[in-house]
């Protein structure tokens, strides 16, 4: 389908998985290593299709497991390549050690993780527990809301990962099933426009890479203060990633006409007494409920987390300041902590953002829909909390029929 006005982009109706594959292909990776897993498989099928047609010129490595996928792309990145891989759930768990190697060696790997419930109870269904379980892997973690944003975030991910001031691998997350198989309207930019967007990466100082004949080695032992120094640098780079992502998002908006707000998206939060904090595909549904509530005169808003690691503490503190009630929706659980994982992190900021009640909502586990009704329930509870009524700290919304 050709866009009528813009020759620089094609309007297509494609799934979230296809959008991820288009995003990767447009960035012209050198090496792509992949292993199939539901609901990610379509991403890699699409990439092999692109390679077969010649649309993608990359070394394609159909590895024998996710662990190898991550190792192949990390090493290829060390050898100077732009790389891509994709996974989900158990696959993410299986590559965990290699993910640590990628971030520890500061390999600018870009990966798509299609969120799915994680090991323990087998579930071929959506949930963010996989992303949460790699929280401390030293990766930058982004979360997309819809098909278009998946494609756009993959482009932004390369800008972030390969930024000489960052050099940290980036994981783009999107809900399995809800987005992986959702076919919607996506504007697919031309390769030319994408390479213009990425061109700035070619103008920065070269990072160290492995080449025959050069006496450089990567993966050296960090001994005592040497180890401390590298950890400190990594943590500092993660901090820099926050502002960098905001700036990249702004630049993206000016070049492609789509801006998302950087680390967080604020939706009708201006005068809102009650604010929900959420991430991923459920935010679309939440926005429709917010609109409805606004029509009824209820001052509610949504803060959408687009960046999970580094955690946008400053932005959240700012936007949550002096609200009457804040609800955090987690599509995952916290084992041995009160409430969801994102909730507990928002709580850690509550001393800074003021005296609002903060409630935890666990919803959408294992493909239990985060329905409009659920969102209404949450807002009702928050209204009660805002009025000072006692409310449960944690509500498993998805457990109630």
């Amino acid at each position, binding site marked *: *389908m050709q866009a009528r006005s813009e020759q620089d982009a094609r*309007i*297509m*109706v494609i*799934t979230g998985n296809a959008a991820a594959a288009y995003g990767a292909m447009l960035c012209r990776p050198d090496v792509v290593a992949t292993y199939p897993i539901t609901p990610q498989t379509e991403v890699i099928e699409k990439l092999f299709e692109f390679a077969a047609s010649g649309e993608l010129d990359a070394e394609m490595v159909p590895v024998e497991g996710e662990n190898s996928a991550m190792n192949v792309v990390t090493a290829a990145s060390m050898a100077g390549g732009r790389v891509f891989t994709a996974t989900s759930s158990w696959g993410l768990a299986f590559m965990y050690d290699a993910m640590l190697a990628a971030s520890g060696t500061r390999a600018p790997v870009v990966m798509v993780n299609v969120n799915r419930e994680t090991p323990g109870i087998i579930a*071929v*269904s*959506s949930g963010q527990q996989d992303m949460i379980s790699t929280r401390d892997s030293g990766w930058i973690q982004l979360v997309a809301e*819809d098909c278009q944003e998946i494609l756009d975030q993959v482009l932004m991910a390369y800008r972030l990962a390969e930024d000489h001031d960052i050099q940290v691998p980036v994981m783009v997350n999107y*809900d399995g*099933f*809800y*987005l992986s*198989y*959702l*076919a*919607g*309207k996506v504007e697919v930019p031309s390769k030319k426009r994408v390479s213009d967007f990425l061109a700035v990466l070619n103008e920065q100082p070269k990072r160290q890479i492995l080449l025959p004949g050069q006496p450089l080695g990567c993966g050296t032992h960090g001994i005592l203060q040497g180890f401390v120094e590298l950890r400190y640098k990594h943590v500092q780079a993660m901090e820099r990633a926050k502002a960098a992502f905001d700036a990249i998002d702004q630049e993206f908006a000016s070049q492609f006409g789509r801006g998302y707000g950087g680390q967080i998206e604020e939706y009708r939060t201006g005068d809102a007494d009650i604010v929900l904090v959420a991430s991923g*595909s*459920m935010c*679309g*549904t939440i*926005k*429709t409920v917010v609109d409805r509530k606004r029509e009824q005169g209820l001052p509610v808003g949504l803060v959408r987390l687009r960046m999970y690691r580094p955690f946008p503490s400053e932005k959240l503190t700012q936007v949550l300041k002096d609200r009457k009630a804040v609800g955090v929706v987690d599509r995952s659980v916290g084992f041995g902590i009160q409430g969801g994982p994102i909730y507990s992190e928002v709580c850690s900021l509550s001393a800074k953002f003021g005296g609002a009640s903060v409630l935890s909502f666990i919803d959408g586990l294992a*493909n239990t*829909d*985060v*329905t*409009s009704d659920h969102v209404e329930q949450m807002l009702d509870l928050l209204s009660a909390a805002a009025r000072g009524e006692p409310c449960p700290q944690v509500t498993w919304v998805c457990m109630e029929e």
Partner: protein
Amino acid sequence: MIEVRFHGRGGQGAVMASRIMANAFVRIGQYGASFPMFGFERRGAPVTAFGRFDANPVREKTQIYHPDIVVVLDPSQRFFEKVYSGLKSHAVLVLNAALPFETQPHENLETAGIVNADQISIEEVGRALPNTCMLGAFAATTGHLPLESLEAALEDYFQGSRLKANVRCLRRGYEEAAVGHF
């Protein structure tokens, strides 16, 4: 916004039908989003897919519990209760069947478009692949989509002789759908 629920069996192309429909809506300047119900879909197993179509961007990402329209690709499911579950009032049914209804299957159902899509697809494609024919019937029954945009959309999913065969299915579905009111 209209919400459409598709019922079929693995192999009949219900998911693809919902995607082609989204594609056709985007072609007329509207927005569409479609996705399948999740499960271990295998050839032969019942399959559900969803589609939302609107002049504004579609933001909801939930399953559809109260459809405006149900498209039933599988003749054997015409009497399944779950096919009619949650129907909005004045709902529309598009059905693949050889025979019309004798009684109204659900009180909220107002309109039905019935076409023998299995037979048509066997004649045109060579085997029972009712999905594109059903899209033609959808256009004829609901009036929400011009046939041309569906025809154009087919080009994103088929090529060559398969495309031609499916265009014939689509057109025949449009022409041969028997639309009636309860």
